[in-house]
């Protein structure tokens, strides 16, 4: 039987196969030429296939093959003629492109045929071997004629062989599979690593990923693939602070085998010892051979501590419905009857109506009212109901499952933000988005959230149906990437945001996944750089409702500041730079195992506190501030930030110990000066002084470990706040939880955003004066 296969041709693959790469100047020419040729030749590119099962005769002495499946696919003779026509008029571009298109169509058709045959063979309780191609070591080229003849015995195939065993028409393939009941399970069509065609442009190579305590995983990737790209695609948590630009040196991995050549640039970023052990920078390695790579699991400290915020009025309440009955003479619906009974109209979701239609005749029952206007759920008996708060940080992701009835945290899920492989900070991720058309950044974060939700539901045995709402906070860029809104315009002046209001969307529409059926609320922000995470933090700490003057600081990649003083609320974002998260610092790292978290000077002896208690591998933000303060106290660095003796200060012993360089100190000076200056500008704006402040809220993971004395010593935090500081933990997540619990939270957040003035610092002259002043220690 002749099988008509799908005409599938992938443009990117086709152009790639003729060495036309996306960065080449002629790419766009070939792209449009591709469209033109496809349009013109669609009807002559249709692939047809035949396959027949026959007794094993050729594939010698393998009795496991009970049957041989002989296959042929052809596009027919017209494509050959058309190609020839192009060449005859010297149109080489079209001729060669059509040839590549035809090859790609054949390739996809053969994959489709494999599935058909595989299913057919499985139905007969047999298994299939990998593809066996004439002209390779497993089958001589002369077998081509046997394959073709076997098909011709049963089918009328318009294919012939030349004296050199070449198929005519040329855009055709003939090959076979072995099939048998006792074959091992092999669901692979073709295995490049076993193939004779070592120079094949379609050749794939294997990347084996080894992880302690896990089964090795093998991925087939295109020859020449970049290792960082591969690791990103398979979801390995690789650091790539500079987004693969080859400058940060953080995407270091160990190649178990073979020994890969190392470039000059890599040599400057990894030590000789490490090179000896097989370390490379993933972004520099384009793979041309099978490799085994080792990935070290990094256990990060992720802050998810928060206190359940105080709630003024509950968002939800159960109302019992009993004794409602429709009278035959009236035309009221069940919804009308409930409205009359309770004295007000309610909005129902479709799922609520569905439940109502089942329950109305089984009174009494309970309705769950939300914000006094909506019906969120209906049940025979009242019971627990839940919400999920999500904080999407640039570095970390935290999800909290909340029992909304008892106002308690059931469980928290936390992980690294998987987008980190596309860059450590928001700017490098925006950069990736503007250079790529794919939706990788959205896909990876949405996937992580899905994994987190599944785990929370599983762990606490909560039914998906009992989740009422999901509230999401994050900085504006994180929220946009999560929602699939292009964040590019946030990265350059005038920092245009697409929308800063609350976004309410059904879970299914947002995730294209029916795990939950409730709504997802993406909470509002204040400006491009004071996002929902900050607004939510203020909401959680009740800053706006407190008597007195308070400062709120969240230091991450940026330092966001909010001051509530003298009846005013003002905010600003300082481009503190990622120094406090370990980027741009030679031995800098995030709060992972091995990071120096804090340091203390005990009578001339420096005591280091390392996350995980193991050997120190680097320094995270709070550790950096402690070390800086020690250096200043010991007089190793003068007030201008200059190292008195030499160019570096050793932190740990040994040849390859951790060192603070002059450049690291400069980087820290820039960051702390930006925050200090931001605080001063806000104070001036409110006509307030440090002494008048009643308190400082320190939010975020960085604030959690910050030693106030050190922070004051280096001039990051004003001295007067020493004993007035409150560590509030993950206030962004806490705010999302308050949103889930409190009545009219939507309105409250809207008013909060409205009542907070944003001050742009990038063009603020006062800020620059203070910035320069704040540079010294």
């Amino acid at each position, binding site marked *: 039987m002749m099988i008509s296969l799908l005409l599938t041709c992938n443009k990117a693959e086709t*152009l790639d196969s003729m*060495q*036309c790469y996306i960065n*080449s100047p*002629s790419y766009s020419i070939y792209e449009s030429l591709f469209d033109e040729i496809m349009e013109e030749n669609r009807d002559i590119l249709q692939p047809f296939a035949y396959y027949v099962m026959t007794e094993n005769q050729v594939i010698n002495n393998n009795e496991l093959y009970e049957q041989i499946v002989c296959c042929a696919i052809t596009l027919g003779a017209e494509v050959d003629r058309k190609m020839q026509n192009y060449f005859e008029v010297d149109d080489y571009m079209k001729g*060669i492109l059509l040839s590549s298109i035809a090859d790609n169509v054949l390739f996809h058709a053969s994959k489709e045929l494999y599935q058909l045959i595989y299913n057919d063979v499985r139905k007969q309780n047999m298994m299939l071997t990998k593809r066996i191609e004439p002209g390779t070591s497993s089958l001589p080229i002369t077998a081509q004629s046997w394959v073709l003849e076997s098909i011709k015995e049963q089918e009328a195939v318009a294919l012939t062989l030349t004296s050199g*065993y*070449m198929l005519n028409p*040329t855009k055709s393939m003939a090959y076979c599979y072995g099939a048998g009941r006792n074959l091992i399970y092999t669901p692979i069509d073709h295995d490049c690593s076993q193939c004779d065609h070592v120079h094949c442009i379609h050749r794939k190579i294997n990347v084996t990923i080894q992880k302690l305590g896990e089964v090795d995983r093998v991925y087939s990737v295109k020859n020449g693939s970049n290792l960082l790209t591969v690791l990103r695609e398979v979801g390995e948590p690789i650091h790539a602070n500079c987004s693969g630009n080859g400058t940060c040196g953080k995407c270091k991995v160990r190649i178990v085998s073979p020994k890969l050549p190392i470039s000059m640039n890599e040599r400057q970023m990894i030590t000789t010892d490490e090179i000896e052990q097989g370390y490379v920078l993933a972004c520099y390695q384009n793979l041309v051979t099978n490799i085994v790579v080792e990935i070290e699991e990094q256990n990060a400290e992720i802050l998810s501590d928060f206190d359940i915020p105080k709630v003024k009025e509950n968002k939800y309440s159960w109302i019992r419905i009993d004794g409602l009955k429709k009278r035959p003479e009236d035309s009221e619906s069940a919804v009308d009857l409930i409205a009359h009974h309770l004295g007000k109209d309610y909005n129902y979701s479709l799922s609520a109506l569905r439940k109502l239609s089942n329950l109305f005749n089984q009174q009494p029952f309970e309705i769950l009212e939300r914000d006094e206007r909506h019906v969120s759920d209906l049940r025979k008996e009242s019971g627990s109901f839940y919400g999920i708060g999500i904080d999407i940080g640039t570095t970390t992701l935290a999800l909290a499952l909340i029992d909304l009835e008892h106002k308690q945290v059931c469980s928290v899920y936390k992980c690294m933000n998987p987008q980190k492989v596309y860059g450590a900070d928001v700017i490098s991720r925006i950069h990736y988005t503007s250079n790529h058309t794919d939706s990788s950044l959205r896909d990876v974060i949405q996937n992580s959230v899905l994994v987190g939700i599944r785990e929370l539901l599983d762990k606490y045995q909560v039914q998906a149906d009992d989740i009422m709402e999901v509230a999401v906070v994050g900085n504006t860029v994180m929220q946009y990437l999560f929602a699939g809104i292009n964040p590019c315009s946030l990265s350059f002046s005038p920092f245009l945001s697409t929308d800063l209001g609350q976004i309410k969307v059904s879970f299914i529409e947002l995730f294209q996944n029916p795990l939950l059926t409730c709504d997802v609320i993406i909470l509002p922000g204040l400006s491009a750089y004071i996002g929902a995470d900050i607004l939510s933090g203020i909401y959680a700490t009740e800053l706006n409702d407190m008597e007195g003057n308070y400062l709120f600081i969240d230091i991450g990649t940026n330092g966001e500041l909010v001051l509530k003083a003298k009846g005013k609320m003002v905010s600003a974002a300082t481009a503190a730079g990622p120094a406090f998260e370990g980027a741009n610092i030679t031995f800098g790292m995030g709060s992972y195992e091995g990071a120096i978290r804090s340091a203390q000077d005990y009578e001339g002896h420096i005591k280091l506190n390392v996350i995980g208690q193991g050997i120190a591998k680097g320094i995270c933000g709070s550790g950096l501030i402690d070390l800086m303060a020690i250096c200043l106290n010991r007089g190793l660095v003068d007030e201008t930030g200059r190292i008195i003796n030499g160019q570096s200060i050793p932190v740990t012993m040994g040849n390859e110990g951790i060192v603070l360089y002059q450049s690291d100190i400069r980087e820290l000076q820039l960051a702390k000066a930006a925050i200090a200056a931001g605080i001063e500008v806000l104070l001036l704006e409110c006509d307030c002084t440090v002494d008048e402040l009643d308190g400082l809220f320190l939010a975020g993971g960085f604030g959690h470990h910050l030693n106030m004395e050190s922070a004051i010593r280096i001039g990051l935090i004003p001295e007067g706040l020493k004993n007035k500081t409150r560590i509030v933990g993950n206030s962004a997540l806490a705010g999302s939880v308050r949103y889930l619990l409190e009545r009219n939270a939507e309105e409250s957040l809207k008013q909060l955003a409205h009542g907070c003035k944003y001050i742009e610092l990038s063009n603020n002259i006062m800020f620059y004066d203070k910035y320069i002043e704040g540079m010294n220690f």
Partner: protein
Amino acid sequence: MKLLTDISEMLQKGKINDVKALTQQAIDQGLEASVILDSLLDGMGNIGMKFKNNEVFVPEVLIAARAMNGGLQLLAPLLEAEGVEPVGKVVIGTVKGDLHDIGKNLVKMMMVGAGFEVIDLGVDVSPEKFVTAIEENNADIVAMSALLTTTMTNMKAVIEAIEEKGLRDRVKIMIGGAPVTESFAKEIGADRYTPDAASAATTAKELMM
């Protein structure tokens, strides 16, 4: 001369319209067709070098060749009127039993780009057909392509047919294709083996010296 170097440069960038316009300008200024042709050949030669050095890939070469053709079409009648002879005559084809034509076509393209007149016999070409074409066209070079181990032996048959006809001294023999190697060329008595289209063109030029 600036105009001539511009032609060469635009050709290397694959700008067909600019090459055409500049060529017309050169013609209008009364420059000799052969001089203008040299600037086209120079551009194509440079692209060939870059290709050999892996600086550009096939797509860029194709675009440059398209630009070259644009210029050549304007020049062709003038070249004929001036009586400009091609660098040499090449008979090209894929050998019997083999239907691969992409590689052979690329060689043809590069040879035209090097100033040769190329007589293309197509694919599945028998030894007799090769011999007849060499005789009829008084060819300087015969270039054969084979992509299969089962057909590369037919190159030997062609060479034997050429020898039989007593043409071996009059014609240089070049061969190429994926399974073909330098040592295979020696073994069957071909003059040259080249690994890619660009080196085929430069080698052909060397053979004409």
